[in-house]
């Protein structure tokens, strides 16, 4: 039942109405009558959306080992403090000298992220990872153009990369050249050597890669690309795995983004919002997007175009997703260096433990000779061949067992794969229960495959017809 179906003409909540006032505008400018939005009581709204919320799986209700997404638990206090009235009611045009508390948080956050990434400077404004990537690509471009090097039109992207990488490179006006992965899950260095040249603007590298392994040739890759005059970009969405162990700046990367909504305490919000700060080393720092925050004699202040003349400019109307930035700030203050190190340690421990538990139960790792990082890949190809039950069926049946499914069929390189990221915040008992469920489902696959083809059975809906959704798009309710 849609909220529109609860609507009855004239139903409304008086407390939500501003007083009726005379309107001095000519009728021709005005719309005919009120917009046809639902006319419902506050109770109907509450009940409708409360019930809808209960139809979701979420971190607060379920284990959610969705690979590449870092669905970890984020302390509630981070959100609560980011929404303190003083922050929440601040108009973005409020001048800096009356916003010192807010700017202090941003400035310190810039500093902490620079320290964590080993980069020189950080700009906080990008509103998600993809926008951070785009900023990085625009910085590639600005750097080469500043050196009057206009032929570098190509960005190299490993074939296992997240879809946003090639899409961001294209938005920045580059062509994308895919670099294959070798059978151990590392970038194929020979192919890379063949690909670089005077047309190479740079490379975008995800590490740990979306295959769930640490790229072992980083030094060589950066060497090859830099030798060819290119730049190197680090996709830091998987930062959870490396905190305190390696720093992209020290590894030779020129620029990177971080996903605050994965690693730094912003839950995913059913799709967002996030924040994708960009961090840059010596060479690319001047090109970072504005605004940034600086600290001068009269306190904290915005750094804008006139302070940073080489900046690629603005990506956001104001300072980006400010409340998300405050969350990250609180999170970092709570954890400190030691706590951050524990994040990576436990994320990697949990992934390797779950991998071991699944291997014990006979599941097949995609890269059997590799360590898991914060996530790992298994392939259900043997199960498919043996029982006709595919990864999708497994995924749907996991829902019946009360687990969100891992990421399926991504990356595309591995058939029937599950990318599994347990995160550091889950308990050992939860991991054991998940491994056990996988085992039970495989048993069901052997004895009753039909049950899996038609799963899920215990959710608010049965398997959803996505083909029909695409073939006969019904994208909005319309009044009859």
């Amino acid at each position, binding site marked *: 039942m849609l909220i529109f179906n609860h609507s009855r003409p004239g139903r409304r909540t008086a407390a939500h109405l501003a007083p009726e006032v005379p309107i001095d505008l000519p009728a021709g400018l005005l719309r005919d009558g009120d917009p046809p939005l639902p006319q419902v009581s506050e109770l109907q709204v509450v009940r409708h959306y409360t019930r809808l919320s209960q139809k979701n799986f979420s971190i607060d209700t379920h284990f959610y080992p969705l690979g590449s997404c870092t669905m970890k638990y984020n302390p509630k206090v981070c959100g609560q403090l980011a929404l303190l009235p003083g922050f929440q009611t601040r108009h973005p045009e409020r001048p800096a000298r009356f916003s010192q508390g807010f700017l202090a948080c941003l400035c310190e956050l810039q500093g902490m992220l620079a320290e964590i990434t080993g980069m020189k400077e950080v700009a906080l404004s990008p509103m998600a990872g993809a926008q951070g990537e785009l900023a990085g*690509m625009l910085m590639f471009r600005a750097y080469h153009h500043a050196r009057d090097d206009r032929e570098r039109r190509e960005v190299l992207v490993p074939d296992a990369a997240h879809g946003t990488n090639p899409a961001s490179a294209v938005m920045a006006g580059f062509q994308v050249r895919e670099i294959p992965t070798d059978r151990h899950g590392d970038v194929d260095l020979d192919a890379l050597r063949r690909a670089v040249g005077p047309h190479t603007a740079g490379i975008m590298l995800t590490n740990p890669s979306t295959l769930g392994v640490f790229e072992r040739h980083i030094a060589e890759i950066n060497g090859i690309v830099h030798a060819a005059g290119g730049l190197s970009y680090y996709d830091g969405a998987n930062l959870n795995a490396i905190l305190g162990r390696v720093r992209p700046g020290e590894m030779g990367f020129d620029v990177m983004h971080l996903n605050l909504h994965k690693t730094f305490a912003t839950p995913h919000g059913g799709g967002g919002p996030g924040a994708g700060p960009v961090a840059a080393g010596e060479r690319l720092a001047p090109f970072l997007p504005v605004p940034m925050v600086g600290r001068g004699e009269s306190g904290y202040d915005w750094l804008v175009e006139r302070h940073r003349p080489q900046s690629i400019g603005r990506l956001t109307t104001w300072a980006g997703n400010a409340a998300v930035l405050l969350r990250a700030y609180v999170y970092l203050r709570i954890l400190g260096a030691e706590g951050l190190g524990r994040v990576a340690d436990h994320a990697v421990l949990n992934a390797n433990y779950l991998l071991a538990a699944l291997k014990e139960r006979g599941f097949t790792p995609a890269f059997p000779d590799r360590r898991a990082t914060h996530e790992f890949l298994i392939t259900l190809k043997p199960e498919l061949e043996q029982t006709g039950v595919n990864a999708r069926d497994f995924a749907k049946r996991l829902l019946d067992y009360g687990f969100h499914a891992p990421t399926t069929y991504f990356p595309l390189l591995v058939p029937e794969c599950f990318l599994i990221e347990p995160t550091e915040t889950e308990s050992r008992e939860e991991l054991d229960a998940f491994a056990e469920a996988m085992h039970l489902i495989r048993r069901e696959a052997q004895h009753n495959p039909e049950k899996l083809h038609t799963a899920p059975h215990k959710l608010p809906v049965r398997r959803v017809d996505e083909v029909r959704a695409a073939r006969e798009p019904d994208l909005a309710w*319309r009044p009859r």
Partner: protein
Amino acid sequence: MLARIGVASIDELFDEIPAGLRSDRPLQLPPAMNEAAVSRLMLERSLGDTPLLCFAGGGAYEHHVPATVWELAGRGEFYTAYTPYQAEASQGTMQVIYEYQSMMCQLLAMEVSNASLYDGATALAEAILMAVRANRRSRSRRVLLPRNIHPVYRQVARTLVTAQELELVEVPFDPATGLLDPQTVAAMAGEECAAVVIPQPDYFGGIEPVDELVRAVAPSGALVVGLVNPLAMALLRPPGQWGGAEGVDIACGEAQSLGLPLSSGGPYLGFLCCRERHVRQMPGRLVGRTVDDEGQPAFALTLQAREQHIRRSRATSNICTNQGLMMTAATIHMALMGGAGLRRAAAASHRATVELVEALTSLPGVEPLFDRLFFHETVLRLPLPPARVLEALEGHGILGGIDLSRAYPELGDALLVCATELRTGEDIESYRCALGRVLEQAA
């Protein structure tokens, strides 16, 4: 756990990291604080700056947000869920998106809405890129972008689209009214052009002659992108009806005024709507209504072949994470307020601004800069540089508006002021008194 993995220590789990890459010094961060201590710190930081009575707008507006909105949007099941890729486990989020899409279509009189973009500025940039893709016939990469659009929106659009070799051509506004002139637009659109952006209201708060503008563009074959404040559309004619039943091709903008707190500028909510015929050029997520295996209604992400996770370098955009939670809040807000609630908030904001202008222009040397109708903000000419006036007003606890003299030097000492439905007669009177005193002291 280590034993089961077969390692002796956690360090061993990192043994594939080449020695040369490992960091040789521990992170230097402030020491860990407990929740109590960080709560105190943040409370002090948030309270350190005196509260100001807000008369600033410029794309971010202080409207009332019913308590219910965030009590519901703030439920863990909404805000700790991921993007609804696993349909059966995400019917809650999906139905909210479908309802959001539906409400935005109703409010703007459009046919399709996506599930959100980052903010108003990036929504405009995406709309421009989309319009150029959708108007492949025209083969033009020129887009008309009026000067009376938010100056930062124009900068963001430039940052985001020029790398793709689009040309953004500035359309001047009439200095007497601050509005666009349909004849000028017709002439500029006449020279080869893929799309024209039309704001409603414009950055100065002015109500544009949108019908005439849309008709002026029509002969050129350029697509029309409406950039609107969605709350204003509860009162004014929506973009889907501009210039006749057909309306604009694309409508976009910032939906902060639909239930989102000011929050220092973000997270906000970019929206993008279009005609059905352009849907395959739409960036961002879409949810469709379908059925499950038993024929019961169900929802699913759809037309995903436009998106980066399927289409990669040939996607309509790189957007992935969007503003889902803000979209949820806006949906609940619209449901609570209903059409009448939104219209009344819009009308009361307009009314308050009329009163504000009357009050302030009663002071010597303060006068309206433009002669035209406005929605809920407008530009005043001051007898002093706005920066000085604003600083003095802050001493009286008032955020007096936005200084236009840097972005629009041609306007002289111009101040953009705004009053929403929250500004009472007393608030307006406080502003008038404070401004009166500031001007006197300067005289």
